[in-house]
């Protein structure tokens, strides 16, 4: 086959790729900011004693978890603005989509975490005189969040990878920039290899960091 690899051509366009990487991080960051509070809220609604409210939460999580991300992106970019009469730029559409979808997954993560705490903890807090909000804040969530860290991180890596789908609506994230670089340099192999490595390295390093942090801040149980 004797293909001659030439990464130099790709690195001459590293400015574009860096810009794309920045776009990727911006998108992921915004989606996280939406997803975490939303996930907690939906989890609490899901655990509500009112059946109507918990059903609404179930419908929300099920709809967003059974829809392919890319379909949701198209929907929020092409259909939703027409329906409500607003104009979304690609960043808004994609970060909203991924935020809403990750929020649905996060809701399940939060719910699992909260439900994994033994009822005795709620009772002990209640017996001290704490109300539900205070119990959640000081007793339940601090324990739940520690247990959630691995699943939580899995969700974040899934989100980080899903940002690549923003390329389908031409948002300038790293894959979109890569296809531009690739068509300018005629070097798809090197370009897509670099992008693949970018994702691999970021996620791999982050996972080591999380593992270290988990170990470092572990509480004996």
């Amino acid at each position, binding site marked *: 086959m004797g293909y001659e690899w030439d990464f130099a051509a790709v690195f001459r366009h590293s400015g574009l790729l860096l810009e794309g990487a920045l776009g990727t991080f911006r998108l992921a960051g915004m989606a996280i900011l939406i997803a975490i509070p939303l996930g907690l809220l939906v989890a609490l609604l899901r655990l509500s004693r009112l059946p109507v409210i918990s059903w609404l939460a179930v419908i929300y999580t099920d709809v967003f978890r059974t829809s392919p991300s890319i379909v949701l992106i198209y929907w929020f970019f092409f259909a939703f603005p027409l329906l409500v009469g607003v104009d979304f730029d690609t960043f808004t559409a994609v970060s909203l989509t991924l935020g809403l979808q990750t929020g649905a997954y996060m809701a399940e993560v939060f719910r699992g975490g909260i439900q994994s705490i*033994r009822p*005795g*903890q709620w*009772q*002990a*807090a*209640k*017996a*001290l*005189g*704490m*109300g539900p909000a*205070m119990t959640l804040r*000081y*007793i339940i969530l*601090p*324990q739940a969040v*520690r247990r959630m860290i691995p699943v939580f991180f899995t969700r974040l890596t899934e989100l980080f990878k899903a940002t690549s789908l923003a390329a389908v609506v031409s948002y300038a994230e790293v894959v979109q920039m890569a296809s531009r670089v690739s068509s300018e340099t005629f070097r798809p192999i090197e370009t897509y290899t670099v992008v693949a490595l970018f994702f691999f390295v970021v996620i791999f390093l982050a996972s080591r960091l999380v593992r270290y942090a988990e170990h470092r801040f572990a*509480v*004996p*149980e």
Partner: protein
Amino acid sequence: MSEVLRVENLHKRFGPLHVLRGINLSVKKGETVVILGASGSGKSTLLRCVNFLEMPNEGRITVEGKLVGRATTKPGVMAYSNAELNALRARVGMVFQQFNLFPHMTVEGNVMIGPMKLRGMSADAARTLAHDNLRRVGILEKAREYPARLSGGQQQRVAIARALAMEPSMMLFDEATSALDPELVGEVLLSMRRLAEEGMTMLVVTHELGFAYNVAHRVIFLEGGEVHEQGTPQQVLLNPQRERTRDFLRSHTLFRLPEPGGGL
């Protein structure tokens, strides 16, 4: 002596199960009352109704002269507000069978959280209070440890300190030694006994007849959701008047005749 707790005609049902059938009970300041009864007699439920971890279906509970809740149109049925119940629970300490310490906090953190968050105490003041109470149950040296590093007996003493730090007007003990290995029971009973001797008002559900005999001012025997027999420990434990009480005492092999001087 003034009355700390009065329970009048208390009923509790779980679906078709009528667990408490009109309990009347009064505990005076400084008094230690032990509730005995076979499993299923409703003794834990009674205790949990006193601080409303279970909601009674019917009946009136008065704590320190104040009636809890408001009467409704249905006779005997009361309505309660959450704020009122939380305030009540802060004044009534409870110790559980399973300790239920907060595993993500240190021992002193467990004792400090209530005073800080519910009584608005500063961290420094709460720490001083926590240390005082940990000393009271003899476990101050573990203040910086996490609960998981402690034995069951030590954990239970921390749970007692946690409840005491709220400076409650009375303490409830729900089979506080039942989950402990036999060799760890003594240290917890000793802490409870000291507390009783300091004049704490206590309502204690236990199977430790020795504790009942040596520490209680009064013993109540519960059977079928009703007060079956009550009196001084000597009366109830040594000279029970009713058949079911006698059966119960016979089946409790743990009961040893008291030695003079009455050590635990």
